[in-house]
């Protein structure tokens, strides 16, 4: 492996961190799932104000005074009852009321679509990293270890999103995003020729994922969901930087993460 003096990543270190990071991730996941279970379970006894505080929406008093974030209330209502499991399918976001340009673009239904879409992208990333690892094209041990680390983090993200979807009354996604698989990824995987091509594809997928989370950060209806989404999106943005370094590009080329490469609405899972 060739490295420069400015950015070093040893293979042993990556493997060591993969092991320790997995333990840390399990602890993090446990905490997050526990909080969700406790607060969003309709039988938990948690009051509306407690749920609102967790989700980051105004409590009843603030809600009445402020008269805003109606969709947050809708999400809480959605959490309180079981809904018919949804069969994932691609499509557009649910329609939202006609609005002015400063009206929030989201709704509780939109939240669920975005969560399901995000999980389908995570599963696609997990699947694609596995194909990359199995391809034999990653000749550098550090590249293999980084691919495994990224794959494990996408698995953590998928697990977290599944929990959020289920808690919101939806059905966790079990399949990769078919729209992206059919239109982008499968063709790209078939055309892989060497390690660099694998890294480029990985970066493209991470870019798509990170930009989708950034876009969702301005659409999710509750601060809690925005924060949860970007706690994932930020990590995927960091993946891009690692891959940029590996490819010899500037590690952080832009001052703001754009959303032009976020998933096309045709790929939404509803």
């Amino acid at each position, binding site marked *: 492996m060739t490295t420069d003096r400015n950015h070093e990543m040893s293979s042993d270190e990556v493997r060591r961190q993969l092991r320790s990071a997995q333990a840390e991730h399990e602890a993090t996941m446990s905490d997050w799932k526990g909080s969700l279970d406790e607060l969003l379970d309709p039988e938990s006894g948690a009051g509306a104000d407690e749920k609102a505080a967790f989700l980051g929406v105004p409590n009843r008093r603030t809600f009445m005074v402020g008269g805003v974030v109606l969709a947050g209330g809708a999400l809480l209502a959605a959490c309180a009852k079981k809904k018919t499991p949804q069969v994932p399918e691609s499509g557009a976001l649910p329609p939202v009321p006609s609005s002015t340009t400063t009206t929030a673009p989201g709704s509780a239904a939109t939240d669920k679509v975005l969560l399901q879409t995000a999980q389908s992208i995570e599963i696609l990333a997990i699947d694609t990293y596995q194909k990359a690892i199995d391809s034999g094209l990653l000749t550098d041990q550090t590249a293999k270890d980084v691919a495994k680390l990224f794959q494990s983090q996408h698995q953590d993200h998928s697990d977290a999103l599944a929990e959020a979807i289920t808690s919101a009354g939806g059905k966790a996604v079990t399949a990769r995003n078919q729209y992206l698989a059919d239109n982008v990824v499968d063709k790209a995987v078939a055309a892989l020729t060497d390690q660099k091509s694998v890294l480029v594809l990985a970066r493209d997928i991470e870019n798509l994922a990170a930009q989708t989370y950034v876009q969702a950060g301005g659409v999710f209806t509750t601060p809690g969901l925005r924060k949860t989404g970007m706690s994932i999106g930020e990590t995927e943005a960091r993946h891009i930087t690692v891959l940029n370094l590996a490819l010899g590009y500037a590690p952080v080329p832009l001052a703001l993460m754009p959303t*032009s490469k976020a998933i096309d609405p045709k790929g939404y899972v509803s």
Partner: protein
Amino acid sequence: MSMSPRHPVDPVDDRAEAPAAPASPSRRRFVRNVGVGAAALGAVAATGAALSDVASAQTTATNPPDLSAADISLVQFLQSVSIAAQKGLLTAAGRSVLTSTLNEEVRTFARHHATQAVTLGTLLSKENNITAANPKLLAQLNGQVNGASDQAALLNVLLTFEEQVSATMLQAMGEAQSFLVSGAVGSALAVVGQQAAALGSAAGKPIGDWLPAFGSTNGALTPAAFPTS
């Protein structure tokens, strides 16, 4: 994994892309609904590289959205943090302890913070815009930067600071009431996280230190500890 000491600009990432043609009525509606935030982000992103001075650019804010008092305070705080970050990183770049490549990267990161401050400023009226660095934060950062005796120490200082800013912005994602604020903060947060990763890598820190599975709010800066004035 080859890592060249010179980082060419990635033509894919830096390409200015025209918005995709509306694919459906729902997509048109979606685009219209997020128009204000997207326009604010897009306008600044397109010109961000050319901006070298935060204060001069902040006069461009016109017709800001109607934000709550809490959101205005939050955006002002983040602006003050971003300006402090810009100035603190420029102080670091002014030290003669970094390699030329890293020095160039740190200057780039400083410009990114400046652009982020400008972007946040588009959400505020001219009179509400913050044009000065967070004084306590900048003093603290400059002290740490000037106290770093070598490259490794300086990179550690900058890594810790970027992680604090990242945590602060993630915390803000959970506090912002307006989707316009969360949209702008999310766009900046992703990049601040990338800068932390780049600095962690450059510092030779274990990858688990700067690449957690989930972003954290540990160490987030608060307006109580770091008032804007």
